[in-house]
């Protein structure tokens, strides 16, 4: 009788090598240079790709196994959410504004990350990095799909969720994340990994998915917590990939150090500007809040970033330029953005509202140096003026945009919170404006890249002139339903009426 001998179980490292490294081969009738034409165009020198190791040693078979399990968990909850009136279990329908902004600004960015990683995986000559980038490409499309799917339950009941695909390209705040990703995707494969792996994943997603998703849980939003944490379970792998790639580049050749440093400077600043939108969501759009933007920035930005840069110091890397300015601006940015959005609320595909007295007390406590001094008086003035006139306080002028990050130039000079930033330069006979020194530096380094960007406000003036309704139709914004104040909106009325039905006896 034959005895069944159990196959010897492979060790993790051995399995990883067999299922990744050994997938590669040496080309015989084409050169590596022909196969990977962009491998050296950024000036990054790699001498030995075998030195790169995925610290998670994730192989394709384990990857499918665990991702399938995540999907099963996710869809079980999404079904439960749809079947059990999940759209009514949120604390308050004001909370939906954060979700609308998320869907309009972040989910399309996930899809862009998918495309970027699919391309980067093709460009890397080393198989270990290519396999990890390939997995990340699949993760990113999963994130876009699960987010859109999760939020589609809300789209059945509430306004403002329907136009995100158009708004990514056309809406004035939608082009902020779009330009971030277009910038990264049109860079080479190594700059791309710093832009997304370091700036977006390491600095941004921690702030986006961790405290914001915990906030979603606090506000009773089963769907978002589920897609958020399901996505975030991949992000730990992504962050690690981004950091390993940075270390790998630094270890391969000393000539790489100044190139990597310049990318860290650039992408830290781009990430910070983009993050301001998340800060606004956290401080102003969550009816119940877990922590303030500034607290989240301290934990996930400052503490974690300081530790990372202490780690990288041995390679000759310093903290990114603008690090101190960023810490200072965290005290101001959410307030400045919300004041801007409130006054341009005819042009936002989500609702806004002024902070209540209770909200303002919370903001004072969380922002002791800035809120009472600079921002409370402005909210009080706006609220008083609206009460007196019965008219919405609107800014009918159009914002001047920063040519790099595409945000309105609504921020103030570092250390001078009452002085709006006014920066402009001439390039090729045109004037370009900037929101900050950081954004101006980025432009000056590659002016041709940014000078050609499509700018939503200039586009509005050129193509629509005074025809604001025509512009609204073009950006897929339904006036009177998607925009303006929460108070008096269809979303507010419906939420109240449907909630009342849940406690009615018939």
């Amino acid at each position, binding site marked *: 009788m034959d005895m069944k001998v159990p196959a010897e179980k492979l060790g993790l490292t051995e399995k990883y090598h067999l299922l990744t490294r050994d997938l590669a081969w040496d080309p015989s009738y084409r050169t590596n240079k022909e196969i990977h034409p962009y491998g050296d165009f950024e000036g990054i020198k790699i001498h030995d790709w075998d030195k790169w190791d995925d610290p998670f040693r994730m192989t394709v078979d384990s990857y499918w196994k665990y991702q399938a399990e995540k999907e099963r968990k996710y869809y079980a909850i999404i079904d439960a959410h749809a079947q059990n009136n999940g759209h009514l279990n949120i604390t308050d329908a004001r909370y939906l504004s954060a979700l609308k902004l998320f869907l309009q600004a972040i989910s399309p960015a996930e899809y862009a990350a998918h495309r970027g990683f699919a391309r980067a995986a093709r460009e890397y000559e080393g198989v270990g990095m290519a396999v990890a980038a390939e997995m990340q490409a699949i993760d990113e499309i999963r994130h876009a799909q699960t987010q859109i799917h999760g939020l589609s339950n809300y789209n059945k009941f509430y306004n403002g969720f329907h136009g995100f695909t158009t708004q990514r390209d056309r809406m004035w705040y939608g082009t902020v994340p779009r330009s971030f990703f277009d910038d990264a995707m049109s860079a080479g494969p190594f700059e791309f990994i710093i832009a997304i792996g370091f700036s977006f994943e390491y600095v941004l997603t921690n702030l986006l998915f*961790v405290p914001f998703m915990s906030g979603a*849980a606090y506000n009773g939003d089963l769907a978002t917590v589920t897609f958020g944490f399901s996505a975030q*379970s991949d992000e730990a*792998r992504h962050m690690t990939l981004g950091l390993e790639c940075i270390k790998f580049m630094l270890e391969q050749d000393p000539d790489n150090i100044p190139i990597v440093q310049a990318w860290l400077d650039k992408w830290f600043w781009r990430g910070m500007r983009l993050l301001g939108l998340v800060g606004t969501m956290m401080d102003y759009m969550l009816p119940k809040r877990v922590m303030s933007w500034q607290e989240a920035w301290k934990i996930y930005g400052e*503490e974690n970033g300081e*530790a990372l840069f202490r780690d990288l110091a041995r390679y000759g890397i310093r903290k990114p330029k603008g690090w101190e300015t960023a810490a200072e601006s965290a005290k101001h940015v959410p307030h400045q953005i919300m004041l801007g959005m409130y006054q341009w609320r005819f042009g936002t595909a989500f609702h806004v509202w002024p902070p209540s007295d209770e909200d303002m007390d919370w903001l004072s406590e969380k922002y002791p140096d800035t809120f009472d001094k600079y921002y409370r008086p402005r909210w009080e003035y706006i609220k008083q003026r609206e009460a007196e006139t019965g008219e919405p306080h609107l800014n009918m002028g159009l914002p001047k945009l920063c040519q790099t990050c595409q945000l309105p130039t609504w921020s103030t000079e570092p250390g001078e919170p009452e002085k709006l930033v006014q920066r402009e330069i001439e390039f090729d006979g045109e004037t370009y404006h900037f929101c900050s020194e950081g954004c101006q530096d980025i432009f000056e380094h590659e002016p041709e890249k940014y000078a050609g960007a499509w700018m939503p406000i200039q586009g509005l003036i050129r193509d629509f002139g005074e025809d604001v309704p025509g512009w609204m139709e073009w950006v897929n914004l339904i006036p009177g339903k998607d925009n303006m104040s929460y108070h008096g909106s269809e979303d507010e009325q419906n939420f109240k009426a449907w909630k009342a039905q849940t406690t009615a006896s018939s």
Partner: protein
Amino acid sequence: MSKVFIAFQANEDARQIIEAIEQDNPEAIVDHQPSMVKIDCEGRLDIRRETIEELMGRDFDLQELHLHLITLAGNVKEDEDVFSLVREA
């Protein structure tokens, strides 16, 4: 020395993973937040397969951590028995 951290979703499996981490890293600080748990530790944090298996009463593959992970900070060192986060500087 810098801190390392790891965060898990507050779910059934993670409860035992966190208990194992507390046993193996007595100096770790465990912070319960809505729907998540964040664990901070100075310099190093070790997650041991054996301790988790003992608490769960079943075999556990350390890569199962990926199902419940939310985020982490520190350099990852992983083999079949221990998953470590380390900061040398």
